[in-house]
């Protein structure tokens, strides 16, 4: 009898294949035993014990060891050659199809490699976006224009063309959408469900979809319209098409609309079409009086959180709910406790926002409770900050405003500017509360809490040195399924004493309660 072995480097075959392979070797003429195992120390020792290996060979756990026992040297050697050939043939077969393809460089080329596609996302500098959108529409594709700096003069004919051809144009400046469960742009990973959303605001859309997920509901589609869509000139073309699409969609049982208050003529058309949908519709025209919107099938609400709650309630067969705007008892207690930590000079809230809609909603809620709030995007012109780089009294700043993003990424991605401003506010003896939004999801920074925590700790040290304590209040817009993970981000922020609420609206109300609680 003769034995021999061969080691094949870095070769992996599944267990069934290895077993069949060993059987094939055993069936060869003149072969008595054969085995193909991973070349681990214990396997080598076992093969020596079994008499299949004459001596111990060095172990190499990632390599395949073939051992053969046969009648003579020539049959053993022949079997090993055949074994190696069989394995190499399999490797070559596996390598077929490795042809390098040129990546698509145009919408047409993209369609060639994916002929079934019916949707294109355009993210080019604004000056080229309209032309690309036109090409896509002419190819029969729905379009999402992520790019900004596209004029209304370009937007209007695109949307009119799309409407005539039964296509949808989301945008321009459409930062967020969720289509057939796929988050596009800045968007969160949310559960599928029966609530369809059309929104003119990116962060507004993120907030309502994330809260719907948090409250146990789910989304069919979340359609972004872009910020100009509900102006008179555009006429709400995309929002009206969105409502029509959700009306026709049998999976959508509840429709939710989010926008700043549209032009009166557009609002009338939107509400009429919503009423005709035959489905319950929740509307948050942020800043509009809910009673002016509410009718039989339409529930008007004041905040993004209320919009999510009402939608989920209706989806679960309940009434939309009543929204008092009061703080929950738990938050009232937190507000009172926090207020005791402030000195007499600390009177003002400083809101530093990465989401424009969060800033806008906060301005509305704080103004209601506290009066004047200054901003770079004020509710009325008299309350515009004289110097946007310096806060005055109660201030809420949208750091995503063009003014702050020239030459640097959006503050949802790049935290440097906000962190610098946190330290600046901590130096101010009048700062009582620093109010923050933290936005998770695709597109955003992969670890927002990790970016903020060092700045918050530094700010706390600055305040402590001046024998003060600055209260940090915030809300995290995101879900457990987001790449950053909601729980992990919240835990990191709570660890540095940030008081977190479920929503932006609650955070604003809590901040207001803290500064007016003394």
């Amino acid at each position: 009898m003769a034995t021999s072995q061969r080691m094949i480097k870095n070769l992996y075959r599944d267990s069934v294949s290895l077993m069949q392979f060993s059987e094939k070797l055993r069936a060869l003429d003149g072969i008595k035993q054969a085995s193909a195992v991973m070349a681990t120390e214990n396997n080598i020792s076992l093969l020596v014990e079994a008499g299949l290996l004459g001596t111990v060979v060095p172990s190499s756990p990632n390599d395949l060891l073939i051992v053969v026992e046969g009648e003579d040297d020539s049959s053993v050697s022949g079997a090993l050659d055949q074994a190696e050939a069989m394995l190499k043939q399999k490797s070559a077969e596996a390598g077929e199809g490795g042809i390098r393809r040129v990546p698509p460089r145009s919408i047409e080329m993209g369609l060639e490699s994916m002929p079934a596609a019916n949707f294109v996302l355009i993210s080019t500098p604004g000056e080229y976006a309209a032309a690309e959108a036109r090409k896509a529409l002419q190819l029969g594709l729905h379009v999402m224009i992520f790019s900004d700096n596209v004029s209304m003069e370009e937007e209007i004919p695109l949307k009119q063309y799309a409407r005539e051809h039964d296509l949808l144009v989301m945008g321009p400046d459409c930062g967020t959408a969720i289509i057939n469960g796929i988050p596009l742009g800045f968007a969160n990973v949310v559960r599928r469900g029966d609530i369809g959303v059309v929104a003119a605001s990116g962060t507004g859309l993120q907030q309502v979809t994330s809260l719907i997920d948090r409250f146990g509901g789910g989304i069919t589609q979340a359609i972004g319209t872009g910020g100009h869509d509900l102006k008179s000139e555009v006429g709400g073309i995309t929002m009206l098409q969105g409502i029509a699409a959700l009306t026709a969609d049998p999976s959508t049982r509840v429709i939710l609309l989010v926008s700043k208050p549209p032009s009166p003529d557009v609002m009338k058309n939107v509400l009429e079409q919503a009423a005709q949908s035959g489905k319950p519709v929740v509307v948050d025209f942020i800043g509009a009086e809910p009673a002016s919107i509410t009718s039989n099938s339409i529930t008007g609400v004041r905040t993004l959180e209320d919009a999510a709650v009402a939608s989920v309630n209706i989806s679960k067969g309940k009434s939309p709910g009543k929204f008092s705007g009061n703080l929950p008892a738990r938050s009232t207690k937190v507000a009172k406790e926090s207020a005791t930590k402030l000195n007499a000079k600390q009177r003002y809230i400083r809101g530093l926002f990465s989401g424009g809609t969060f800033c806008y909603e906060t301005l509305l809620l704080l103004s209601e409770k506290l009066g004047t709030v200054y901003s770079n995007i004020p509710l009325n012109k008299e309350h515009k900050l004289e110097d946007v780089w310096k806060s005055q009294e109660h201030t809420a700043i949208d750091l995503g405003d063009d003014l702050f993003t020239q030459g640097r990424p959006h503050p949802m991605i790049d935290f440097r500017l906000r962190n610098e401003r946190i330290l600046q506010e901590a130096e101010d003896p009048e700062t009582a509360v620093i109010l923050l939004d933290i936005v998770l999801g695709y597109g955003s920074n992969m670890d927002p809490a990790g970016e903020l925590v060092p700045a918050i700790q530094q700010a706390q040290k600055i305040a402590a040195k001046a024998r003060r304590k600055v209260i940090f209040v915030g809300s995290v817009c995101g879900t457990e399924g987001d790449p950053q993970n909601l729980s992990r981000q919240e835990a990191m922020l709570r660890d540095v004493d940030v008081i977190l609420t479920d929503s932006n609206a609650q955070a604003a109300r809590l901040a207001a309660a803290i500064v007016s609680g003394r």
Partner: protein
Amino acid sequence: MQIHATSIGEAIPRDNFDALIHSAFDTAVNLHLVDAERLITLLVSDHYELPQGIRIESKDVRFQSLTVGLLAACRAGVLRFESSPLTIDLRAAPMWKCHISELNADMQSPSAERSWTAVWQILNIRQKLNKTEIIADDLFQLNTGSLLSQKISRPILQLISSTEQFDIEDSIHAAEKMIGLGPGVTPSGDDFLIGFLAGLWSTSGGNQGQLSFIHSFGNGLMEIAKQTNLISRTYIHHATKGQFSSSLSNLAQAIAFGSENIRAISEAAMHVGHSSGMDSVTGLLIGLCIWNTELSLA
């Protein structure tokens, strides 16, 4: 060709990552994460989940264009491969996680005992029908069965005894004799150890002594796992953290709660690889019996 992942395991990086194709099988491809000594697995299945798995259901997906050594990169939730038209969209895929560590199985309950006995019988029949080298019944009769069975039975008995006594050093010593031992791309000894850990996690509940043992044993196991291949080592890595395949964790749960569907669930757990599934189930059943009573190192 763009396809959507159906689910992703909890160990799949949520951030951008780069990888190299490590090994390719008919319905699974392992990717070696750059800068990490572990693999993630792309698998086509309508039900089988892995902690390191990216599961896709599309039956028409072929992995032929994915050959060993090619680059893969995931950016903003989309996984792409060098020289391949295949892209996999991970963005909407829900995360799958194994919750075996929360099971707190009471193996003294009559229903759990009944289920355990039924699975043990099914396992032995299945092993004998498939003529596997390890037959569970033989492990407790020294010098019986195949050479592998004889070689592995002593360390298994040593492992049982040392685990009962919370003797870390002796347990690792026993495991060292089993690691990388046996046929298959994940050798039988490794599969047994993974199943054994699943049994321990299932019954540990919140018992600090038991959890402490599992953690220390896990650390020791990862040290000696250098003696086996990277595929196996990846499974062991997750097992030390309480993460197992869905088929193994489903079986642990079915035994703990006395499921009426125990036969189908146990067959599913055994039907993995040639003998891997059966070796893991052997380990699971033995692991479940180790800590029958409340023990505390304190």
